[in-house]
């Protein structure tokens, strides 16, 4: 009996990090709170941990969704990655609150991404669901993924800016960092310096974009 207890304790998960069993991968569910904290972290390593957890836990679900609805393995990989980009962007918004599970949110995003792609291929049909719960989405997270000419033009303008400007605008508008975080990350002396820098960079971008011949038509400005 003592030996039984010993072996039970030995094989318990608490010991596994110290005595890993060869060829055995512990795949445990990381909860929503932890994933959210990872994605909202400023450290890329932490963010990547969140992405890895999402791959391990939900890639299979999205793969099934795409495969059962006229897609193939490559489509599934693209949809999942697009979904992660949109989810990352969404959870980093200043006013983000998680009102459904990450699974439901990610499913809703990926489902919309796949519908958009099907629509472009003119193959839209009633979708076979693989996850019962659903959630309403605001369009902003999904608009991020649209590869229209207007987005391409602004992205080109962003690439024309200096490295500092590009970083500040990305930190503010994509990663949704606060001015204090931007100042810390960029080595500025304070929030006001960061704010002024952001204004100047945005002005440069606006001027460059509006100076392009196709801008007027594309932006209807």
């Amino acid at each position, binding site marked *: 009996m003592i030996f039984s207890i010993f072996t039970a304790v030995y*094989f318990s*998960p608490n010991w596994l990090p110290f005595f890993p069993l060869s060829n055995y991968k512990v795949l445990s569910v990381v909860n929503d709170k932890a994933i959210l904290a990872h994605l909202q972290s400023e450290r890329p390593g932490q963010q990547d941990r969140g992405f890895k957890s999402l791959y391990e836990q939900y890639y299979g679900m999205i793969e099934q969704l795409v495969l059962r609805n006229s897609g193939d393995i490559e489509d599934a990989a693209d949809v999942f990655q697009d979904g*992660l980009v949109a989810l990352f962007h969404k959870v980093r918004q200043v006013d983000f609150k998680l009102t459904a599970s990450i699974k439901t949110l990610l499913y809703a995003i990926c489902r919309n991404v796949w519908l958009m792609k099907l629509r472009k291929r003119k193959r839209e049909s009633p979708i076979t669901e693989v996850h019962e719960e659903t959630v309403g989405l605001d369009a902003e997270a999904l*608009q991020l993924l649209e590869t229209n000419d207007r987005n391409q033009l602004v992205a080109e303008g962003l690439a024309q800016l200096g490295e500092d400007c590009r970083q500040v605008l990305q930190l503010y508008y994509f990663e949704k960092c606060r001015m204090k975080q931007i100042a810390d990350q960029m080595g500025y002396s304070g929030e006001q310096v960061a704010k002024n820098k952001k204004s100047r960079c945005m002005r440069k971008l606006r001027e460059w974009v509006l100076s392009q011949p196709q801008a007027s038509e594309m932006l209807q400005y």
Partner: protein
Amino acid sequence: MSEHEDQYWEKIDDFLDGQLPQEERLAFEAQLEQEERVRKDLALQQQLRQGIAFGSQGPLRARLDRIQAEYQADKQDEGGKVVPMGQGLMNRWLMAAGLLIGALTILFLIQQPASNADLFASNYEPYELKTTMRGPDEEDLSSLAIEAYEAGNYETAVPRLEAALAAAPEQAALQLALAISQWENGAIAAAQETLTPLLEHPLLQDQANWYAALFDLANDDTAAARAHLEVVVSSGGVLGGKAEALLDEM
């Protein structure tokens, strides 16, 4: 553009981020309704923001490509579909596996024959010299040797037994006692050497072979022990039953 212009665009950003205080927000919303220029600027700012986000995906996409490649490689290594297992469920499975392994190990140990060391320990006890061997003179060499041997004082017994045997080499029982004393003192090779002449002794052959077998078991030499025990069994003496039982256990 002036600083004033920058503040104007800042206000648009704050409005889009929901950061304007209520009073300012209401004023801005009123301005939006009234002025087309402001509506156009708001739309432009939204388009620029979206374009910046779109253009910022490159490094993130590169990281996701790497993570996806690692995930796919792991999945292939596992040779099948990755099925997430809840921590609670995994704990229960691991606990159950631990208990099962423990139970099987106990069963395995019960089924296993005892080791040679165990057999030695459960069968060995020093040879008992008969008190009738004690001579009339309590102070003679043999009596002193026997006294030390019977007291378990083997360090003292060895030189006394050697002296007694030097004076009277025919005392086979004392030679057996010497072998056992040497064994007890850790002089294993000497003990086996002392025992060897007794293996064919007409009176102490069984005892000598019995102890030789035990010493062999202690040395984990099963074949040699078996050979000595078979001699004891075949002689049909009083130790025959014990030797046979020991052979069965082996």
